[in-house]
């Protein structure tokens, strides 16, 4: 393999949703990339949200230093978490500007955004097996505000998969915001619309790129939650199984 990519895991894909990280590696390998995973820290957004500027700076500067070094041969940096992506790409810069931070910001992409770009260039591996499932897609705010809904276009490439509904509303979670006692009720009120839509859609899977959104949707619906990369990876595996058979 000659092409390389740097993966910024973020906390969720590392500690709570390792299947997201695994799927990312396998999907990228299917597309001919070797994945480099440098040792990084939390992106700093939770520290910002909890007014800890010092802690956010420490993490952000550490990450941008490490990522800039890893990407220095000209590699792009991908993330699977919308909030980490926003932090590295634009939110951190006004507070912790540096040459490294700007370099990293210019190289960071959302994983699905990147894969869709490959598809546009005719370089995306389409060896998908059939996945006859109904999917509800929830677009997290931190992708929504970057006008990124690439996951939908990618999932639609999977044979027999039906994206029955795309939701663009806020789920009210906002990282730890919706977990806090003072915000909990408000957060649930905001989520109610999505919960109702998920229940009405009668789907097999709710796909969303954000771990926090996934927890919120699951809390109100009990739905099976998958990151879009996990869906793509399953489709690749379905193809492999079909070939083996």
């Amino acid at each position, binding site marked *: 393999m000659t092409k390389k990519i740097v993966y910024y895991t973020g906390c969720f894909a590392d500690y*709570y949703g*390792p299947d997201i990280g695994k799927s990312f590696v396998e999907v990228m390998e299917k597309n001919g990339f070797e994945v480099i995973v440098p040792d990084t820290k939390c992106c700093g957004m*939770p520290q910002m949200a909890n007014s800890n500027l010092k802690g956010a700076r420490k993490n952000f500067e550490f990450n941008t230093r490490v990522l800039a070094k890893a990407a220095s041969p000209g590699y792009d940096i991908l993330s699977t978490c919308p909030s980490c992506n926003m932090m590295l790409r634009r939110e951190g810069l006004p507070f912790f500007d540096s040459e490294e931070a700007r370099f990293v910001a210019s190289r960071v992409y959302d994983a699905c955004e990147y894969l869709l770009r490959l598809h546009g260039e005719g370089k995306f591996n389409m060896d998908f097996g059939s996945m006859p499932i109904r999917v509800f897609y929830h677009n997290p705010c931190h992708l929504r505000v970057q006008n990124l809904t690439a996951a939908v276009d990618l999932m639609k490439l999977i044979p027999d998969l039906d994206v029955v509904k795309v939701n663009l509303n806020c789920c009210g979670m906002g990282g730890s915001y919706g977990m806090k*006692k*003072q915000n909990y009720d408000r957060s649930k009120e905001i989520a109610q619309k999505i919960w109702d839509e998920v229940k009405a859609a009668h789907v097999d899977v709710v796909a969303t790129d954000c771990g926090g959104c996934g*927890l919120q949707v699951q809390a109100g619906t009990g739905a099976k939650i998958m990151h879009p990369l996990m869906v793509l990876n399953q489709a690749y595996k379905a193809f492999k199984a079909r070939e083996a058979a």
Partner: protein
Amino acid sequence: MDSIPIIHIVEPSAEQSKHRAASIFVRKDHRQNIDDVKERLKDIRSNVRDNYASLVKELQESLGRFGGITVTHAIDAKEAAAYIKKVAGDINLASINKSNIVINELRPELQASGLKTYIRYYTEFKNFEEGKFQKKVEDYWSLPGMHGRNLIESFGIRKTMYKIPSPETRNFVAVLGVNAIAADDGSVFFLQHMSNISRDLDQAKKIILVASLEKITKTREEALLHTRSMGIFGLESILLDLIPHDVEKYDFDTLPIVDGQNREIHVVILDNGRSRLMEDGYKDLFLCIDCRACARQCPVGQHLLLERGMVYSPKNYLLGFLQGWLPSVEYCLHCGRCHVECPVEIDIPMLLWRSQLEHYEHHKRSWKKRMLDDPEILAKLGTLAAPLSTWMTRLPPVKVLMQVFTGVHRNSNLPAFTRKTFRHWLKGGRRD
């Protein structure tokens, strides 16, 4: 009466627009592109932001040429309210418009001074005949669909006043936040959705026009575009406001007609911390045209609106915190949608964060806040003890303790910890 600045009242009408849009006589190149409007607005507002001191001076000089008005400059809301109370004299009844400056900043001080304030707008909604109300609402809802056609033409000048008439005068004061005011000739613009502004201008014994930095433009043409743009970009926020409000209503039309020979117009230029904010890194806030487009997709907006009765927008929320009349900005969940919606692209989420971070440079963070600010440490600890840690965080007594000590609500859906993290998987030869 001596001369007064020209007062223009802009009003929307979807019906007229529909006719024009459908007309074969409207050539495509005569319709303004919405992106061009945004660019022009950015130019206008950037000019004000970068030259605000000279523009305030120019405005004061322009207004000084009119013998029929009295102009004053108020440092803060308290000073402005004291002036208005003095002008009101023995009148204790005030009609106010739905301006953020008047409602959010001035109203508490006006009420504290003893003036009874009512928003006439809501009374007019209440008094609408059913059929007409329905038509008005339908008319409004059809306006957003005009984007990309000739929406800007939907907001025309419906009324121009060169003097204030006297036959309808009643004994109350009108405190009206202007929508725009031109520095070069002092002309005043209002965006009117009901007839509240016209009626106040026709009826109030004493009229107090309130302007602040973000309402000033260089020229009359700019003030007109500013005012129309408030309507264009703020349409859906206006519509969102059409929810039942628990506000006290008062029918000014039932007041007896009094002698209108000595009607007065005063102009208050209110600073209320704006000059300080311009110097403190918040000058982009004054690119704002107060359209409240930023409120359109704000997930917490309706909650704040209902709780506080303020004219809500994320920008007003931030301004309220910076001016000291709101205790925090921690209602915001930092979704970033306000930034996307803003026609002049003010980075409100960044400014909200900045204000919060600056606040905590001088204030101690609660220990609950400290507990939650490093999820990675919590994740590492949970991982070490998984699956025991997951089991424990599902136990009701533990959940209660967590709520007490970390502030995490006991019913929160917490993620499960796993002993085998992604990095373990990667370093362990990718074996599941």
